[in-house]
Structures are given as structure tokens and as C-alpha cells.
């Protein structure tokens, strides 16, 4: 997590909203008539592209890699999960929105944990 409160809160809210939007879009496109696997992979790809598009306005305030990478993963996961669920059963829109938002929150927490592990100084790096 970025220790500056603006970026910590901004990253959290941005990913929540990107997940919500990607989940809603996946819900609007996929119906129970879809094959679950097709829905899952198609919405995963669409969600990632959507994440990249939504990164553009978010990045103006929150930066480059720190905003773009979580946005793309959030879009991917929210699209995949909601697309898969929508292919399996009828569900109300607010459930899709909640599920997408939850994917966004889970994703940014994963990024924060990964960042805590990877960041910092190394004197004899292997590569990168």
C-alpha cells in the first residue's frame, strides 16, 4: 500500500468502481443461455480491456503503473467472475455490481500484499 493516504484511498476506491463497472457490463452481456466457459473467458478479456480504458481517467490522478496494473487485473477478475455467474444463473443487477466491487477490493488488497513483499532495496539483484 502507498503510505500516502490520498493514493491508498484513491487506489481502493478506483478498483472498487472499476470492478463494479466491469461486473455490471459482464452482467448486461451474459445470460444463462451462454456456455459458462465461453462467458468466463470472453468477459475476462473484455474486463481487462475495460480496465485499461477506465485506467485512463483514473491515471490522471493516481499515476501510471500503480493505477494501470491493478485496474487491468480488477477488470479481468470482475468480468470473469460475474460473466461466469451470469451464465450459470439469473441474478439481479445489484448482485453483479456487488460481486464486481468485491473483486476490485480483493484485487487491490492482493496488489498491496504483493507490493509489501516485493518493494524495497536489494544490493545484489538477480534480474528485473
Amino acid at each position, binding site marked *: 500500500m502507498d503510505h500516502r493516504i490520498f493514493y491508498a484511498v484513491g487506489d481502493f476506491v478506483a478498483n472498487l468502481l472499476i470492478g463494479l463497472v466491469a461486473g455490471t457490463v459482464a452482467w448486461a452481456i451474459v445470460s444463462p443461455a451462454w456456455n459458462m466457459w465461453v462467458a468466463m473467458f470472453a468477459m475476462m478479456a473484455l474486463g481487462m480491456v475495460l480496465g485499461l480504458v477506465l485506467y485512463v481517467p483514473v491515471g490522471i490522478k493516481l*499515476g501510471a*503503473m500503480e493505477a494501470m496494473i491493478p485496474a*487491468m*487485473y480488477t477488470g479481468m477478475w470482475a468480468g470473469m467472475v460475474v460473466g461466469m455467474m451470469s451464465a450459470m444463473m439469473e441474478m439481479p443487477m445489484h448482485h453483479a455490481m456487488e460481486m464486481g466491487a468485491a473483486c476490485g477490493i480483493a484485487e487491490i488488497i492482493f496488489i498491496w500484499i*504483493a507490493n509489501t513483499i*516485493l518493494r*524495497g532495496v536489494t544490493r*545484489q539483484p538477480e534480474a528485473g
Partner: protein
Amino acid sequence: MADTITQAKWDKLAPRFDGMAAKGAEKRWKPFKEALFDHMDGKILFLALGTGLDIPSFPKGKDITAIDISPKMIEQARDRVAAYEGTLHAEVMDVHDMPYAAGSFDQIYTSCTFCSVPDPVKGLKALHRVLKPGGRLFMFEHTGSRHYPFRQMMDFMTLLTAKIGPDMNRNTVDNVRAAGFEITEVNNIFLDIVKTIKAAKAV
């Protein structure tokens, strides 16, 4: 002879580069860049000045030669160059064709540069040549990742970005070492993707 394809790519981006890159990224990265640039000392080469977004982070009163392959970028940087309180010469130049004598500079700085230099090892070897023995290289760069799932994402993003701008999956630390530098420190700022690299030329 200058790489005209790379030059044309960055000339095209120059008028809207600040809007694309300045607002979010520069604010977020500013404290890390300032900490890196605080090491500035002696005769300095700054590679890939762009529109001069990094200039406000330079410490005052330094002797800096800044180069960029794109004349349009240098044109955009004009006001920031003029505002710098120190000696700052900006020149249009390809890193692969620098006319400077070997060992001309005490320090070299780069900032989000080696994601875009077409032949990074050749470019870094050119920097190695113009750096004095014992001189130091300071880099602020974004690179590829060594770790799943970030490595795969950076590879995918490079498919989208390579034609219009930077590569997202470069192994810059390896490239610095391959060019003959000794790595002294790598500081990962975001994951293992955004980082500062400190290296030295052997005495």
C-alpha cells in the same frame, strides 16, 4: 545517424505528452525521483529529457547536459529548461550516436528512458563509454517483472504499447549489467516494476 523511426514516434507524442504522463505519474513518483536526483554532483548527463517534466525535481545549481532524440520534445521542454536555476543545456541527440569523448561525465541519470531505447544494451554501452571510470549511473525506470502474474501482464501490455510508446517488459537491470556496469543498488518502488537502479563504472 539518428534513429528516425524512434524520433518520429516521440515527435508525434510530444504535443500531448504532458497530458498523458504529467499529472498522475509525475506527482506519484516525484518524491522518489527527487531522492534519486539529490545525488547529482559534478558534470552530469541526463538522458531523454522529454518535455522536461523531471527538471523541477533537479536540485538547484548543477551542471547538466540533457539530451533527447526528439526535437519536438526538446521544443516542449524549452520553458522548463529556461526556468532551471543552474546550468542546463538541452540538445537533440540519439544515445547511440553521442559525439562526447570517452569519460566526459561524472554521473549519468535516466528517467523512464530504457523502456523506449530501441537497443537498450547498445544504448547503455554508449553511456558506459562517456562515463568517467568510477562514475555512477542513476536510473528511475519501469521494467518487466520476474513474478507471476505480473510478468505475464507486462508481456501482454507490451503487445499493446510497443508500437506507440514504451515496452513494458524490459529486463533493465540485466541490461545494465550486460553493458558493463556494476549494479550497486536496486530499490523497488512499486512491485518489482517501478524501481531506481544505481550502478557504477569500474575504475
